[in-house]
């Protein structure tokens, strides 16, 4: 492998890892702070992608569709938290798994009823609809570069939010000691609703912004959800920093796994997870 190709493969890993981070950061927040195992997280990714398709068709503008899609999914997240998730905070994880698995089925069925079972595609916005040449044979989609930058921006925004705002401080406190936060008189139910809505919004945003690249199809949340859980396990439950590092590691493992051990590439990510668990059972960045 020559050095140019090597750097392009690094770029590929980075790009994949960042999209993964966008979905998994929401999952790790919900899991770490609220103690909720949210299997339906992938459904919000799916919902975002289908909204991108549907709204772009209705409105005509992809940018407006993204904004509207985020608003819609955040509201859906808030309503779900109020009506359903809230009743499961004090229950065993088994119940949470059952109810959020149920939500997957409900979301898929609703998608099937309203939008059908067909595969759809979202056009890349005209401004970004070209590729730049990297080598004489290979080009890189400008939209793909744009999403990468956007993911970096979201990662920085999340970092600032968590490290330098009052809400972020409460979130960090909630992740490390919930009872203490409650006894200090912080409105934990409001915090939970915000965190859940934020998690849902992040997953949906990933779906929205990725829709022109990924195409839109039934059950598209499944694979994303599995990888998000792997990210959370490797990074440490509740740690956004951990999710960031884990996502990039998975991006590298998956890309270079395909190059060096092509017939067993499907395993590399899980081998990585097993290795991390043996070394640090609590994940890379769990603040225990």
């Amino acid at each position, binding site marked *: 492998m020559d050095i140019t190709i090597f750097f392009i493969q690094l770029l590929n890993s980075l790009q994949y890892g960042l999209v993964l981070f966008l979905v998994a950061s929401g999952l790790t927040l919900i899991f770490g702070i609220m103690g909720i195992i949210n299997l339906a997280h992938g459904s919000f990714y799916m919902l975002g992608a289908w909204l991108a398709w549907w709204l772009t068709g209705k409105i005509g503008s992809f940018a407006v569709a993204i904004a509207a899609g985020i608003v819609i999914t955040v509201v859906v997240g808030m309503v779900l938290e109020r009506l359903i998730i809230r009743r499961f905070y004090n229950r065993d994880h088994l119940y949470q798994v059952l109810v959020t698995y149920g939500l997957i089925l409900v979301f898929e069925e609703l998608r099937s009823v309203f939008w059908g079972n067909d595969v759809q595609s979202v056009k890349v916005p005209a401004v970004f609809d070209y590729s730049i040449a990297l080598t004489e044979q290979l080009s890189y989609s400008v939209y793909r570069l744009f999403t990468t930058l956007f993911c970096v921006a979201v990662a920085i925004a999340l970092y600032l939010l968590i490290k330098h705002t009052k809400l972020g401080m409460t979130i960090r406190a909630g992740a490390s000691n919930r009872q203490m936060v409650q006894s200090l008189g912080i409105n934990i139910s409001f915090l939970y609703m915000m965190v859940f809505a934020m998690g849902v919004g992040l997953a949906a945003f990933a779906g929205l912004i990725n829709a022109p690249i990924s195409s839109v199809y039934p059950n598209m949340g499944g694979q994303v959800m599995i990888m998000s859980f792997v990210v959370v396990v490797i990074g440490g439950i509740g740690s956004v920093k951990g999710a960031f590092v884990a996502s990039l590691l998975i991006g590298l493992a998956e890309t270079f*796994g395909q190059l060096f051990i092509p017939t067993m590439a499907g395993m590399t990510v899980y081998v990585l997870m097993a290795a991390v668990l043996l070394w640090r059972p609590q994940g890379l960045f769990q603040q225990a």
Partner: protein
Amino acid sequence: MNDHKKPTLNRRGFLAGTAAFAAVGGLMPVQTLAQSSEKLRIGMMLPATGTFATLGDAVIRGFKQCVDENGGKFAGRELEFFHVDDESNPSKAPENVNRLIQRDKVDLLVGTVHSGVALAMSRVVRATDTPWMIPVSMSNEFTGALCAPNVFRTGFTTWQTNYPMGKILVDAGYKKIVHLSWNYLTAQENLAGFKAGLEAAGGKLFKDLWVPFPSVEFQAMLTELASIKPDVVVAWFPGASAVKWFKDYAAAGLRNIPMYGNGHLTEGILHATNGEAEGVHTVFPYADGLDNPKDKAFRAGYMKRYNAVADTNSVTGYDSAQLFKAGLEAVKGDIKNKKGLIAGMEAARIDSPRGQWTLSKAHNPIQDFYLRKVVGKENRVVRVAAKALADPATGCKMV
């Protein structure tokens, strides 16, 4: 999270729930049984939900179109349908297929798409004498090592639809040939069929590349392709994944490398592309623009009935019905005469929208395969790639 209460599962509640579930579930067979009289019972075990739902739907539509065209009767007998959603879930397959065979006592079983589910069906069906038709699932073994007198394929095998490609590529003068696909069973069968055809035509595979199933992150392999610079790429990603594959391939600037594949690469997804798949060649037993009278009538009828364009799956569904009808007519509607029914189907010449076909000794269609090219949103026929191609049926004891 240690403060969470952990309520134990209440035994009484569990029993009550189970009883209620059993009661609701138990009501249904009574209803279906009450309706039946002397009608022929057709069991449709196909996916109605999930990724393959549209494929299952097309098979049922095709089958019912043939029934309607015959006034709802085959050999003077009415037909009654029993539908099961197999969910493309192999672990539920034995229960589902037993329900159709044991409880509903179907006279014909039709299914399915997912090869894992079909494998489970095969295990159950081979221990009975219920005729079974496989319209979509392509795995070679059902009419190979697992062939049986009551097992029929109305679609085609992976071997059949990949084998002709080798000669096409060699004839076109391509030397550096790369195969790229998901790494799972069907894809490995695809590659084996393609390689056999390629080597028989005197060509050689330069390299096979794999993407882990079911990942749709193609960037790493696209970069690899660009560094290999092959003369031609043979790719296979079915369904929704293909849309993304074509888009990524185009965005990576690789469209100056021609792409070939078996027909599943471009089947049922072209409406979701915007010209990224233009010019891709595929091999399949059905195509747009075949221009035979049977196909024209079939498509017009399908459009009228369902307001949809017929595809390969609707054709294999339609042919399943045609084959069953041929068998029934041979025994004058006497479904109890299983031997006569099977002999009737074995002797049938099916006038299909895809062209005429007959069954091989292993009960797999001997049929023409077409070279097709993506033009707009259609898979237009270019020419016949292989005339009356029979699957070698490796391992079948009936051959």
